[in-house]
């Protein structure tokens, strides 16, 4: 089946998959190498957003053309990964932030506004959030 693939398509699919993998790998290195938690938390997003997206693009191209119909699976996977991964990272980040604030750790990133409440009733209504410098 691979032999029947036109060259341009082979190159396209390979490029997408290799680039995606490289980005994911870079994200993993970042997870290991970056100095603080708050910096590290950003690294895996490389893998889940752009890296994953490129791999899925390659997969979608390949299967759509070899199987003769448009494959939606990759789209669904992309949507779910994009929606759910931030949840995990946000949970981790917010939990750490809370702990650091309570314990007064040195690495707490500066807060740009009063942490509580996040939004007043008025802000919730209007959607306009006034940012206040500390």
């Amino acid at each position, binding site marked *: 089946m691979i032999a029947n693939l036109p060259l341009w398509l082979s190159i396209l699919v390979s490029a997408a998959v290799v680039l995606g993998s490289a980005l994911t790998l870079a994200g993993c290195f970042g997870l290991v190498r970056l100095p603080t938690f708050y910096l590290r938390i950003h690294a895996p997003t490389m893998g889940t957003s752009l890296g994953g997206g490129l791999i899925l693009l390659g997969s979608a191209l390949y299967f759509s053309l070899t199987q003769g119909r448009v494959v939606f699976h990759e789209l669904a996977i992309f949507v*779910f990964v994009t*929606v*759910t991964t*931030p*949840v995990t990272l*946000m*949970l981790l980040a*917010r*939990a750490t*932030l*809370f702990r650091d*604030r*309570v314990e007064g750790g040195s690495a707490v990133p500066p807060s740009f506004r009063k*942490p*509580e*409440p*996040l939004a007043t009733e008025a802000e919730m209504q209007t959607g306009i959030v006034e940012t206040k410098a500390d």
Partner: protein
Amino acid sequence: MPTELALTLIWSLPFLAAVIAMAMPAGARNGEAWLAGTVAAVGLVLTILLFPQVADGGVVHSTITWMPAYGLDLAFRMDGLAWLFCVLVTFIGLLVVLYARYYMSPKDPIARFYALFLAFMGAMLGLVMSGNIIQLAIFWELTSLVSFLLIGYWYHRSDARDGARMALVITGTGGLALFVAMMLIGHIVGSYDIDVVLASGRLIAEHPLYPVTLILFLLAAFTKSAQFPFQFWLPNAMTAPTPVSAYLHSATMVKAGVFLMTRFWPVMAGTDMWFWIVTYGGLATLLFGAYAALFQRDLKGLLAYSTISHLGLITTLLGMGTPLAAVAAIFHIANHATFKASLFMAVGIIDHETGTRDVRKLSGLRRSMPFTATLAIIASGAMAGVPLLNGFLSKEMFFTETAIYDPNVFVNLSLPIVATLAGMLSVAYSIKFVHGVFFGPEPTGLEKTPHEPPALMRRPIELLVLACLAVGIIPGITIGPYLAAAVVSVLGGDTPYYSLSVWHGFNLPLIMSIIALLGGVAIYVPYYRRLRGIDGDPLLRGLRGQRIFERLLITATNRWARKMVSVFGTQRLQPQIFIVVLLALAAGVGAGWARMGNLPLPSSFDPVLGLVWIVGGVSALAAAWQAKFHRLAAMILMGGAGLATCITFAWFSAPDLALTQLLAEIATTVLILLGLRWLPKRLPVPEDISIGMRLRRYRDVILAAAVGLGTGLASYAIMTRQAPEGISEFFLANAYTEGGGTNVVNVMLVDFRGFDTLGEITVLGVVALTVFGLLRRFRPAPDSADRPEQQRVQADFAEAQGSANVAADFLRIPALIMNWMFPVVMTVAIYMFLRGHDLPGGGFIAGIVMSLGFILQYMAGGTRWVEDRLRILPVLWIGWGLLIALLTGLGAMALGFPFLTSAFAYADIPLIGKVPMATALLFDLGVFALVVGATVLMLIALAHQSIRRPKPASTPQPRKREGLDTWN
């Protein structure tokens, strides 16, 4: 009506009615009484209609095929003896129902009374009609069990509980002995069919196993019929409501023992061993019962000991081994049932109308309740053996048998002398009963003013006393044919000539009767004042069977048990686990060493899978390393090992397994994480550990490694071998054609092995309910009862910031996304469910997916938020799930297929396409509902702990023992 149907109705109606009675509303006293009375009346009428067929030694059979491959059927038969017992059970049952309608207080839980009463009636009918001796033993146990519940009916009273427990222990032990005896008889005869056994002649009595069989057999009969030395449970069983006593201790329960001896009399009796044990056991009981009855101040106690004594009389007759004695025994069984039931009812009326059964407080009641007095006096006359009453006839026959010349001098003298002595005593206690209660001055100091009971409450006694009189005066007409049928069914061709006439001429038995009557008066008259005030007999009062029994029971179940625990048990888990694992290793090595054979090396190796395995292995090792000191890390690492397993399954083309593993892995990890909160805080790594501790750790590591490697090796050895020719080929070949699905695993679960699945989901439901029940009153260890540090910190922070809910504020966005994911998860669950029959998925997987959705909601919103919004009633889901699965299975049966056969078709649904519509899908729906219900129930139970303020468990006091501290 066909005979077979009649037989089936007689024994099955009471059980059916028991279920109905249990379900009736609490206040339906009349409804319950009508139900029970109708059932007893129908049973009585059916039995009477069957009489022509059993009259001349005929036997009626009814067999319901149950497991023909094993020769196990529900076999019922009715012959003359069974007929007589059925009439007694249903007739006296009918009267007791009427009596109980007026006796039982409206405050008593009446549904339970009638349900148990009916169940007991059914058990007793099943016992006397059993056509299979194993089945007989089972109904025997059933009577023990139900009588336990009946005796303990007023279970708020400690004496009722004690009496019930004692009756159960004694008669239950006898039941066990009976079961073994029946197995032995079946072994000797070669059949469990009672007809074959009864036709076996002297086969059993001449077999080398006869002594063992006989001892076990008599253990059963003696315990049930309260024969010496097991008589003590019966007086304690008098704590039952009086209708129960009237039923159990006149016509049914205690008569089961003598019924058993009569039933097997043709094949078991007639040996020396039988003669000595049964005759003298019975004689001792006869004398002891009559003696003890004289000194009772409780009227029911008096009747209880009198019952023991009369049962002793019947046993003695059965022991003598002559056909005429057997005739007398059967006759006395019927007579005793009639007069004793009426006496119990009379005592119940006295108790009911005066508030006491104490003979010291009662006197002169003949003025206030003349009718009851007359009836009780006549019944007492029958009990004492006064001429022209039924008791006289059978007692006369008893005297005749004891007076027969025996070459053994001891037998020749002891039998008639003890019989006469016991006769005198029974006359004396009968006079005590009559004189003490109904004569003398007006009673003083009673709680109630005595008066006659409602007429209908007296009617049963009137009928029974009428029967006493009729049998006593014109026995040939009233009981003659029925007694003859019963006698022929036991004795067969050996039936001797016997005369039922009242006057036999002036002979030795008549002299004995006269001596007994006059002697009884002579005993009573001089001492009646002292007898009235006495409680318990002066000679044997110290030797209480009850106390001996209780002491034995305490020794066996408490002292010995505690000793065993202290010798073999330990409060620490580590040594137990060490021993269990060590033994498992030894067993595995012992069994597997020789059979390991040569292990082929794998032919190919995939480096990627190898990498996955290395990650999984390292995770597992690290989890073990961290298990004691950092549980959270250990849990996460365990998840890593689980994921490696998952990938392995997927790699080797087991997508179903991989999917299930993945979902179960997630669910268990989350649930255990929730449980971690109740474990003690993580331990600090100790700085300096002793040499001993170090050595123990090395030992444990070596053991763990050996077991792990051994298990791995065994798995490898099994999986590299050619699989034996199993049934998997069948499943692969037939999944589509027979089950209508291409996913073989799912077809197996819901179709081929659907019965297994039904059992499994039942277990799952039970487990969920158990978890809920246990956690509802969960008492954590004292050191984890306080709120955890995180909650305290959050509360402090919230207070400092003036915020209501820190978690909600900090996690608003992730929580929102998780909320939005819920419908998506639900869609995935439905998708998984629908594709299950042909592709990986199915009810179980869909159920877990659904429950993961709930876990997400708990994480996002917190317990209170979810509990406010939860619209799933998990217990209902569990129940409906089970019902749907069961009904699907039954639906196949209704169409004439075996249980759980599935039908299938493909439906064309617009937009979606061809969808397999197998009835297995319905079954899977049941599985799905149950899994959702069970997991949500457990989730609620676990999550609710976080908003509960549980009381800490009482501080355990670990018992320090030498050498225990070395385990760590």
